[in-house]
Structures are given as C-alpha cells and as structure tokens.
C-alpha cells in the first residue's frame, strides 16, 4: 500500500520534449513508472523514449486515460500548465517547476478545488512509492519499500534523511516532497491524514523548515487526529529573520515562522524533534518500540 501513486498510476509528462522533461522521463520510466503520454504543443505524433507525444493534455487524457501529470515547463508557464491538466480531468498534478509567481498559484488554487484536482508543488522534487512509481526528480537508489511515510518541504535534505532511513533499514511506503513555496498544493496535514489512513504506513517522518505555520498545524493535527508515531526535523534554526533561505517559503517574517516555535509545537504534540538528521532513525526506532509494547 501507499498514498497518491502506485503501479496503476497513469502518468502524463507536460513538457516532455524539454531538457529536464526528457531526462527525467527516462529516469522515471527506467524505475518502472507507468508513463502513458507526454505533452508538447506542436509535437503531436512524435515520441520520447517510446512514449507518444500529444499537443495538449486533453488529447493525451482522451487517448491514454492518464490520471496523473508531472510538469516540467518553465515557471512563467507553470500555472497555465497546471490549469490545463486540471481542466483536462487529471486527478493529481505534480509541479516540479521552480520560481512560479505566488499570485499565479493563488489564482490557480480555487479552480483546482472546483475541479477536485490535487496538486503537489510547485518547486518540489515530486514523490515516490518505492518499487512502484517514481514521479519527480528524486534519486531512485536511496529509496526502498517499507512502512515509513515521509513528507518534506525541501529537496536535498529529503535525500539526506531518506538515505539515513534506508541505511537504517527503515523502508518507505511513499515519500513526498511538498515543495518550498509559500503557496503550494497538498501540505503536511493533507498528507499526514493520508498516511494515517494507509494501512501499510506504520510511522511518519516529517521534515519541516522555517517560514509559515504549516508545521504548527501539523503538530496540532497529529495531537488531535493521529494514532501513528511521527518524528520531525526542522531546518533553519540559525536563519536570521527577514532573509529568504533559498526557498521562497523559507523566510521568518514578523517574528513568526521560527524554528523555535515549530519545535515547541511538535514537542507539545508529543512529536520528538531531531537535533540533527542523523538522530532521526534512533528517534523513530524508539517511537515504534514504544508503540509495540
């Protein structure tokens, strides 16, 4: 079991003929992801890695039944691509594109809601259900199937931690990089809820960072709704206020969104927060041992 994506996912790649799109299509296909179509306006009839290319998402969906999309188009066109997928009836959209204007995402949000489309990203590394489907730019070899759910706001830090998990024999059900932008699609609580309901997931690792209050909301959700253990880490404890730490979302503004506040919220919710990534496997082990007593 897993959340959001699995073997049956039918993926369409928007921007499949671009440099990044082509490269990652190859990698995803190699991993075994069921890629059924690509989209590149004006290139209908061509193919990439044996995958048929269509002029638009609607045509791709009609011909192949694609139900999930991954977006590699440049930031200025990303919001339009998200809407195209949503209006074509795609149920889950993963937007990799980095640097999408916030107003674009704000405008997109209510339309996705109307259409019932789920979005991950933008500015995210995607997600993976190890052994079933890789949809994103994550490095496949660090993941392995198992019973840990994983959610993170950042990219390389995800790899760092997942690598530690895998080395410590904690395989994963699904790992989701939700992206570092201030206005994004699915967020911590949306995914915590899904992991809580996924029978295969036994515990969750959550990697937060400074900015916003998604971690505080997650902590509250865990305290009120979750039965499964969660272990957290927060990046950016030493970041100064008012400075954007790479991600558009990682900024402490008006004295809120600090790591201290987030750590306090998790502690209050009984969620252990690792001081450094290397602590996570041990915290996870302890939490899971507690539960099996």
């Amino acid at each position: 079991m897993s959340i959001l994506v699995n073997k049956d996912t039918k993926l369409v790649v928007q921007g499949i003929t671009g440099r990044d799109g082509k490269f990652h299509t190859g990698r995803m296909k190699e991993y075994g992801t069921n890629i059924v179509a690509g989209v590149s306006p004006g290139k209908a009839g061509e193919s990439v890695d044996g995958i048929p290319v269509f002029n638009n998402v609607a045509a791709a969906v009609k011909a192949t039944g694609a139900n999930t999309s991954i977006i590699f188009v440049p930031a200025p066109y990303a919001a339009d691509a998200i809407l195209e997928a949503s209006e074509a009836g795609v149920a889950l959209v993963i937007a990799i594109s980095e640097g999408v204007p916030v107003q674009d995402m704000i405008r997109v949000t209510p339309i996705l809601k109307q259409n019932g489309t789920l979005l991950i990203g933008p500015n995210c590394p995607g997600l993976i259900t190890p052994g079933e489907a890789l949809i994103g730019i994550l490095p496949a070899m660090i993941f392995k199937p198992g019973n840990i759910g994983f959610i993170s706001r950042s990219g390389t830090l995800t790899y760092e931690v997942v690598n530690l998990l895998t080395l410590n024999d904690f395989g994963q059900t699904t790992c989701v990089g939700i992206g570092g932008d201030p206005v994004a699609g699915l967020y911590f609580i949306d995914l915590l809820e899904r992991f809580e309901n996924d029978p295969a997931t036994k515990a969750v690792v959550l990697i937060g960072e400074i900015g916003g209050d998604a971690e505080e909301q997650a902590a509250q959700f865990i305290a009120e709704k979750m039965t499964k253990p969660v272990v957290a880490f927060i990046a950016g404890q030493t970041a100064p206020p008012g400075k954007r730490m790479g991600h558009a979302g990682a900024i402490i503004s008006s004295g809120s969104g600090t790591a201290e506040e987030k750590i306090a919220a998790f502690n209050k919710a009984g969620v252990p927060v690792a001081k450094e990534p290397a602590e996570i496997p041990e915290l996870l082990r302890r939490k899971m041992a507690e539960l099996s007593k």
Partner: protein
Amino acid sequence: MKIHEYQARQIFRDYGIPVPDSVLCYTVSEVEKAARDMNRMVVVKAQVLAGGRGKAGGVKLARTVEDAVTAGKQILGMDIKGYTVEKVLVADAVNIAKEFYVGLINDRNTKSVILMASAEGGVEIEEVAKETPEKIIKFSINPLTGLLDYQARNVALELFGDIKLANKAASIFTKLYKLYVETDATLAEINPLVLTPENEVLAIDGKMNFDDNALYRQPKILAMREPDEDELQEIAANEKGLAYIKLDGNIGCMVNGAGLAMATMDMIQLYGGSPANFLDIGGSSNPQKVIDAMNILLGDKNVKAVMINIFGGITRCDDVAKGLIKALEIIITDVPIVVRLSGTNAAEGLELLKQTGLPTVSSMSEAAKKAIELSKR
C-alpha cells in the same frame, strides 16, 4: 524585493490613492527648498529599507523651514538599523483626526490574499495582532472575483462608521488590491491611513514588498530596486545560479540544496560553531559554480574555515568531485576546507578527492565538527 516609502507613495498615486504632496531630497539644501516651496508644516522622513524609523529618530515634524533644515541635518547620514540614511522625504504634514491601518498580504493557509484592517493605525500592526487581535479585521479575498465593492465597503464601514467616509476608504481598499495584484506584491500596507479634520481619507505612509519570482514580468517594479551592499552580493550570486545570504559567523558553507544548506548551518551551530553564510549551489556539478561559490565565501574576511556539504542525488558525487578538483586548481587560499560527499557514487568521489589532500568525510556531523576544529586553529 523591498522598496522605499517614497516609491510606495508613487505607486499609490499612480493607482489613484490619495497621498499628501511630498518631495524626495538628498541634501539639506534640497530639504530647505522643499519646505519653503510647500510653505506649511512638513514631516521629514528618513528613506531606508528598515522598519521602526520613527523610534530611531528618523521621522521629524517641522513647523518652519528652519525646523525642516534642522531635521534634515539630523536625519541625513544617520544610521538606522545598520542603514545609512541617504535621502529623506519632505512631506505635507496633514492634520490627523484619526489613524487607521490597512494592509494586504499573501496568506499561506487560505492560499489567498488577505485584507487586514484596523482602527488602531499608526502603530506596528504586529503589536496590535499580538496584544489585541480582536481589533484587526481579516478577510480572505477570492482571487477569481477580486476584492468586491461590497466587501471593501463592509470593512470600511466597520472602521469609519459613516457611509460617506467608508465609501472613500473602500475606494482606497479596492485600488490597493488592484495594485497589489497587478504589481505581484507580497505585502502592501498603508499605515497610517488617516482621516483628516476636513473628512479627507489619505495614505500617510506606505510599505510594499514584491515577489522576486514575478520580477521578470514587472519591469517597472524591478527598476525601483535599490539594493544595499548585502543584497548586491545576494543578487550577484543569484545571477551565477547561487543562493547566498551573508551571516555573522566564521565557517563558510557550500551546500547543494536549500534545505540541506539550512540544516548544515544549524549543525555547525549545534556543535558550537558559527555559520558565515547560507549558500546553495543547486543541483549542478559545474566547476564554474564551485569556483564562483568559493570566491564569494573567501571574499568574506570573517571566514576561517569552509565546509563543503554535498549529497549526490541525480548529480553523481564523482562528477561533483571532478568539479571541485578543477575549481581548487584555480582557487588559491589558505583557509582550511573540509569536504563531505555522500549519496550517489560517494565512494568514487571521495577517492578522487584524495589527490587534493583536503580532509574528506562522509557524514554531515563529522564535517561540521571538523570545520569547527579547523576554524579554531
């Protein structure tokens, strides 16, 4: 991106929001001329990209031209939170019957622009929010309809009571929303929005921030950019594909990925060190990026040691190692460097790096400890 008050006032004016007359002055004699031309009570205001100017003495009321000159002399050149005041705004000091606050900001939770308004204007809204949150009206705007007239009027009526005044204020709210969306702002505040004894409603002070990701389609806003020295460095780094922020410590960090870069800074502190910067070189193994990044790091005289922290994902560590080797052939420095490589082909990468003689490790914590040790030599 931030702009000065005088620039925010100009944007307000362009969108039809009433703003008192004002003149931007770089010298005391310009202040004198401005005050003389205005021929009434003025306020002299430091133009720096920092809050709390009033408390710092950067805003002074002047009843006479002489007062204005005195204020200009005091304020021009003064230091406010590390910023030197290079220009002041000489503005018509309108009579104030009451002060209000109105602001727009992107809200992560509702994923929308929210309008915030309060009858407690003129003070820091964060303080109001903390102490008396019930005095702030918050309202999430549906991006598909924008701020509707009746919504703006409802909020304005709650603040002003009187419908005629409320209609004036509501018109300002809808204009503020229009300019907010059209300029890709991330913050637009009028504080205070004042009611004069003559029943005029005016924007007395304004603050605006903009979405860096949208500057490509906002040439007019981009032209307003007046970065300080730190920001110039950040912008220069950005143009080289690097995300860089200078900090006060002595251990330079070079990391791939923003989250990992933050975690690296945190770990340095955890083990008793102090990071000199945030630096994300992104996902490339291009030697030029490594060279550019090293030049930036070593350009900071405080840096006593460098910690390179790479986790190979799609990028292979051996490729990164090759890039590093090339870069280190060009860069000559006596600042000690420790390299951590992990992930895809880490072993091969570490093997390659042996020729450089640099200390290499395979975990973050080891790297941090080593860098701290090196920085203390």
